[in-house]
């Protein structure tokens, strides 16, 4: 199988779905780029080149550059979805959600319920998240807990190129509004990715490591860190099951609960802010549903309750690390 980057996996998923279904359209700031400019058309493909090459193949009718009006074009994607297209909108960085959140959480998320089941809103909103890029407080957040909080939204956080392709195709074919999170530090990650289209269902976790001692739940880029920690711990005789839920809404609660029933110990690793975050959400689930199996306090490995700092020195200290995961796992075994 061919090795492909996370970036390529996303691009390929989009291209294949656009070929399959003429109702799939793309929109966002500079998703092609060069609109109205004297030089190259398709000059950007998004700030990190993820959608490059799609406009030449599908034309500007289906790959739409937008003015900087996130409420306008995210809302347009939602309105288009409710009337027959299957748009994929790019909210460049999830940090920008604050200028367009209404369209996502009050419109797209609620149409179906408010309208008594009469609306279908198959929109996908792709967005970059996460730290490590030295992009500072307004370009490094995770924020998927805010979307997971909202009934009516689905939330997808792929942790590998393989998953990215399968989950994105699923997202596009899905009939509900989907928030699709891409970690900006993972675009160059390489993985075996089949050439043909395939889907990965939502709400089915992936067990990336298996072990009897501790259950480690991790999301997105944190899955890599959890795996790293699990591999190191394995050598020290501690077996971890690493669970990547892949989607936080719906979430595969069964896989998490079953594993904790076996291990009796839980560590949750998350890059999002700690308060009302995913680490808390998973911890609460287990404290309610698998309490009797628990042998030790749950441990959460998250950043502190601070904005993301700019300086590399501080940002490295801010982000969860394999070392901190190892420490947490060991704490549950103490």
């Amino acid at each position, binding site marked *: 199988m061919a090795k492909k980057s996370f970036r390529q996996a996303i691009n390929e998923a989009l291209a294949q779905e656009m070929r399959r279904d003429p*109702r799939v*359209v793309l929109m966002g700031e500079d998703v092609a780029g060069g609109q109205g400019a004297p030089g190259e058309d398709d000059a950007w493909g998004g700030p990190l080149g993820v959608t490059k090459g799609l406009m030449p193949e599908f034309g500007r*009718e*289906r790959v*739409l550059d*937008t*003015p900087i*009006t996130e*409420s*306008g*074009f*995210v*809302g*347009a*994607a*939602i*309105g*288009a*979805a*409710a*009337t*027959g*297209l299957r*748009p994929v909108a790019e909210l460049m960085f999830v940090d920008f959600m604050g200028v367009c959140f*209404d*369209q996502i959480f*009050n*419109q797209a998320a609620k*149409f*179906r*319920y*408010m*309208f*008594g*089941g*009469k*609306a*279908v809103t198959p929109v996908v909103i792709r967005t970059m998240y996460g730290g490590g890029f030295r992009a500072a407080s307004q370009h490094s957040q995770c924020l998927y807990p805010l979307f997971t909080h909202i*009934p*009516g939204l*689905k939330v997808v956080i792929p942790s590998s190129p393989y998953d990215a392709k399968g989950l994105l195709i699923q997202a596009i074919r*899905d*009939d*509900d509004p989907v928030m699709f999170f891409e970690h900006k530090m993972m675009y160059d990650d390489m993985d075996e990715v089949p050439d043909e289209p395939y889907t990965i269902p939502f*709400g089915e976790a992936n067990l990336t490591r298996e072990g009897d001692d501790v259950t480690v739940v991790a999301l997105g880029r944190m899955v890599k860190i959890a795996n790293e920690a699990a591999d190191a711990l394995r050598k020290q005789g501690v077996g971890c099951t690493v669970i990547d839920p892949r989607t936080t809404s*719906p979430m595969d609660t069964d896989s998490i609960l079953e594993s904790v029933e076996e291990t009796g110990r839980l560590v949750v690793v998350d890059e999002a802010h700690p308060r009302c975050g995913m680490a808390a959400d998973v911890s609460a689930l287990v404290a309610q549903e698998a309490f009797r199996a628990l042998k030790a306090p749950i441990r959460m490995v998250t950043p502190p309750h601070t904005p993301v700092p700019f300086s590399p020195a501080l940002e490295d200290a801010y982000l969860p690390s394999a070392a901190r995961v190892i420490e947490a796992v060991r704490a549950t075994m103490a």
Partner: protein
Amino acid sequence: MQLNREQLLAAYRMMRTIREFEDRVHVEFSAGDIPGFVHLYAGEEASAVGVCMNLDHRDKIASTHRGHGHCIAKGVDVEGMMAEIFGRGSGTCGGKGGSMHIADLEKGMMGANGIVGGGPPLICGAALTAKTLKTGGVAVAFIGDGASNQGTTMESYNLAKAWMLPAIFVVEDNGYAESTSSSWSVSGSQLGRAAGFGIPAVQVDGLDFFAIHEAAREAVERARDGGGPSLIHAKLNRYHGHFEGDAQTYRGNGEIERLRAEHDPLTHFRKRVTEAGLLEGGQLDAIDAAAKSEIDAAVAKAKSAAMPPLAELLTDVYVRY
């Protein structure tokens, strides 16, 4: 454009149905039978009807919190609407939406909206669908004077023009956003703003069904012909409070009485068509009576309808989860 007799009757029927619906909801609300926030459209009928009479099944509209008139004008079932407002299971949205969220996508009605400025971006999307799938359809956003100040609305003007969308923005300027006068809240002017975005625009007297109908006809034609977005600034009046329960102390002395007496789009329509000999008073009287019984029946039916079953609490959050 000349409207034929049938069209004129239909226009009057729709306007009268809206008026009857709204005045009756007012009464039922006062009696304590209707829960929640309710915003009535009485006085503004010529806008919804004048615009929507130019639309067909291909076309979409997005409405506001003051949505009943737009719903009726776009063909949403009146019985379902009334039941919805009463929170009944037989309502258009199964009782889950209420007055502020009546929608019927099959009728091209994309929803009343509890968020001021929520509709215009959605309409850009509906217009994009029409353009992309070449349906020939157009999409219309109704926008209050207050909503005209919301960033989402102004972004939509720009986007619609940049994408050359078949979109129409109808600013329904009833002079107030809640208790705040549009003469204060809207700096500059609606037409000036449209010009600032390069969007053709006209101002019309919302009293005058014919003026609105004609302005909308031109805008729809432009949109269907690929000429991009247009804006219509309709000056009109609301007869009830901002929401039901509003004491309206901010209005001028005798303002509402004067408006009802002198600026009633239905009276104005009746006068125009009877004086011009296009319709006879008797025909209109018959419509008045029919509308009254229709609304009577809708209210009776709504009141006797069952509340939604509790199981409905958990359905239709997702298509599939």
